């Protein structure tokens, strides 16, 4: 097969980079033009990604990589390059597709923001970094871009930096992910040290770890895999590093869709998929990933049930779905994880953009003040509903198929995780129906007289996203393992279909929606009596199991306490010593000044005294 476009893969991130440079040069200039520059650049990347992807559709496409020597210091050889595999081409497609739509959407959403040009610049920089991350052919290159997307996330979460909460959220996002990044860096260094040829490119990693030659001992493999997983958990919001993601919703909503739902948070999943051979070589690491993922899935889903902020519900839902992906990877189903990543990227971006459309019109994020928006925002309501159905795992929407792939693997491998996943699926359907019915149906609970449908730049992306949200599930069904075959080069043949799992997952989805409908639309279930019976539980869930409070009390206050102790030491002991030296010199000088009083007679007296001392000491030296 022809590989012209594949060889040009390095061009994909350069479109947004160029856009970023142009937009930065524009300062706060023409906002409409800025939106078009951002959209066109991402469209260019998208077009090229599609061309690359079509080249790889044949089953015989070989991985292509190219690069140059970046640093060479003695035995240390570092290269920088890009690699196109089936996995990366798929990620390119997802990232650029969402990026195009988010840029277009932002043209409407950010129209009235006077820093919109800066915003599009940041988005372009993010797209560049994310595409670089996807394309990187070695772990070090990936790490560089990994940090870059972290910076972009920081900049965009704190985009409205005049709000104290946005500043705090940006800092929190950056610091918490940094904790993960430190683990990843340690993992990379350890891997570099342990690799027989001291290389970090993915092809070599695959060779070493698939070889089963015992080139790297088992304990070390587990350690490396776990350190990489720490990085992935930080980025992908896995327990216990999930706390930054809900707070990151302080950023503009298109950013929540692009970075904190579809692309960047999936980078952790992508990283594990990219280094999957290391994980497969260590059963302990795989189990850790699976259990942490499964726990996060159910943990975040329960929190999402009790949230009142529209975006926070979706944020916890994202954490939960990322947990699903991790669980799939931990269970050895690379296909399941990546499949859910792809479908989730589309329907969660759709949900966030829909939420943004609602927030843009209603000017509040509290679902208790919404209601009845259906009558005023038809396009948003319908598309959001489709996204919610996809997330809830209702057949034939995409989320059903990807969730089914994961649950099926869990059913075969670890029944406990299957039960957790099923419970999380039920909760997902429940909180999505709660969200949907609270916001779009019923009576308006706030002042919604001014609400009207968003402009076409915002509704068009919603409409476009419904297509993959509905259909992208069909690339991997129990009867048709296209994606699995394609991703694994024809070796992976799991997910052969299990009627029981499908029925169960569809049933819990429908059940969750039905209960949500009873409670929040029909009102048969009186939710006040239920919440009044367990106020502690509601508060526990609403506060996210007090994880934030705990971290604040233990880590933030702890570090502050240590800082205070060191400040006292610095102030009194170190500073005291410095002040002592200075003070002594000053006192000495003062004394000298007092002696030097200009009185000749005093000088004379002192001279006389000195002479006497001298005489006495000379005369008396015989006695000692």
């Amino acid at each position, binding site marked *: 097969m022809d590989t012209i476009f594949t060889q040009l893969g390095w061009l994909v991130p350069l479109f947004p980079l160029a856009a970023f440079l142009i937009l930065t040069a524009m300062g706060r200039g023409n906002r409409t033009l800025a939106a078009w520059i951002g959209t066109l650049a991402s469209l260019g990347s998208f077009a090229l990604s599609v061309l690359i992807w079509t080249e790889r559709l044949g089953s015989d496409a070989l991985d292509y990589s190219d690069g140059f020597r970046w640093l060479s210091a003695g035995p240390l050889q570092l290269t920088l390059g890009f690699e196109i595999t089936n996995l990366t081409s798929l990620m390119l497609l997802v990232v650029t597709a969402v990026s195009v739509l988010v840029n277009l959407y932002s043209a409407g959403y950010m129209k009235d923001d006077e820093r919109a040009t800066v915003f599009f610049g940041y988005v372009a920089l993010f797209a560049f970094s994310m595409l670089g991350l996807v394309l990187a052919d070695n772990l070090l290159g990936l790490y560089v871009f990994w940090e870059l997307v972290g910076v972009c996330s920081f900049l965009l979460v704190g985009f409205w930096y005049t709000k104290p909460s946005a500043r705090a959220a940006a800092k929190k996002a950056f610091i918490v992910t940094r904790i993960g990044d430190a683990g990843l860096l340690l993992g990379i260094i350890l891997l570099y040290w342990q690799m027989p040829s001291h290389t970090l490119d993915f092809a070599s990693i695959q060779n070493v770890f698939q070889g089963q030659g015992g080139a790297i001992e088992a304990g070390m493999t587990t350690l490396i895999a776990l350190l990489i997983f720490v990085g992935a958990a930080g980025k992908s919001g896995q327990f216990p590093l999930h706390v930054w993601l809900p707070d990151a919703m302080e950023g503009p909503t298109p950013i929540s869709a692009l970075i904190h739902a579809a692309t960047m948070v999936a980078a952790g999943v992508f990283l594990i998929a990219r280094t999957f051979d290391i994980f497969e070589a260590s059963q302990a690491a795989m189990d850790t990933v699976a259990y942490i993922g499964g726990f996060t899935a159910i943990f975040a889903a329960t929190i999402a049930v009790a949230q009142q902020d529209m975006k926070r519900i979706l944020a916890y839902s994202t954490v939960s779905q990322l947990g699903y992906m991790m669980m799939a990877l931990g269970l050895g189903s690379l296909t399941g994880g990546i499949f859910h990543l792809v479908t989730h990227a589309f329907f969660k971006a759709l949900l966030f953009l829909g939420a943004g459309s609602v927030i843009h019109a209603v000017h509040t994020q509290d679902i208790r003040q919404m209601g009845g928006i259906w009558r005023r925002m038809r396009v948003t309501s319908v598309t959001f509903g489709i996204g919610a159905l996809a997330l809830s795992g209702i057949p034939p929407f995409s989320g059903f198929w990807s969730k089914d792939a994961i649950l099926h693997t869990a059913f075969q491998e670890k029944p406990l995780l299957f039960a957790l996943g099923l419970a999380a699926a039920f909760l997902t359907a429940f909180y999505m129906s709660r969200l949907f019915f609270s916001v779009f149906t019923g009576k308006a609970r706030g002042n919604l007289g001014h609400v009207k449908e968003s402009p076409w730049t915002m509704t068009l992306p919603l409409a476009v996203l419904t297509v993959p949200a509905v259909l992208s599930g069909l690339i991997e069904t129990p009867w048709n393992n296209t994606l699995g075959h394609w991703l694994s080069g024809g070796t992976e043949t799991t997910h052969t279909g299990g009627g029981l799992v499908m029925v169960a997952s569809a049933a819990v989805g429908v059940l969750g929606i039905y209960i949500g409908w009873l409670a929040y639309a029909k009102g048969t279930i009186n939710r006040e009596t239920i919440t009044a019976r367990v106020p502690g539980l509601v508060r526990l869930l609403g506060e996210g199991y007090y994880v934030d409070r705990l971290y604040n009390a233990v880590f933030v206050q702890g570090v502050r306490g240590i800082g205070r102790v060191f400040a006292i030491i610095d102030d009194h002991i170190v500073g005291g010593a410095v002040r002592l030296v200075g003070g002594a010199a000053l006192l000495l000088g003062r004394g000298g000044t007092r*002696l030097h009083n*200009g009185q000749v007679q005093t000088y004379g007296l002192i001279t006389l005294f000195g002479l006497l001392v001298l005489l006495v000491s000379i005369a008396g030296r015989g006695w000692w």
Partner: protein
Amino acid sequence: MLASYLTLAAILFCVGLYGVLAKRNTVVVLLSIELMLNAANVNLVAFSKYGVVPSLSGHMFALFSIAVGAAEAAVGIAILIMLYRARGTVNVDDYDELRG
């Protein structure tokens, strides 16, 4: 005899030293300096007459010293007069331009 002369010289020297260190009037200080100078001269003459090896060099030295002392007193008084004209005082305590 030598002891008496030396005692006289010592008394003169101490009186002069006391004057130099304790008197506030600059003229008296200058006078006291002359006293100390003359105490030394008395010593020179006494040693020249009653010393271990009597000779005339002590006398000559004393004469030289008196001549130099006279010149010194003249210069000192001249400086003091200029100083008095400039500052309007002869109090030693007021001459403290070199105070640190």
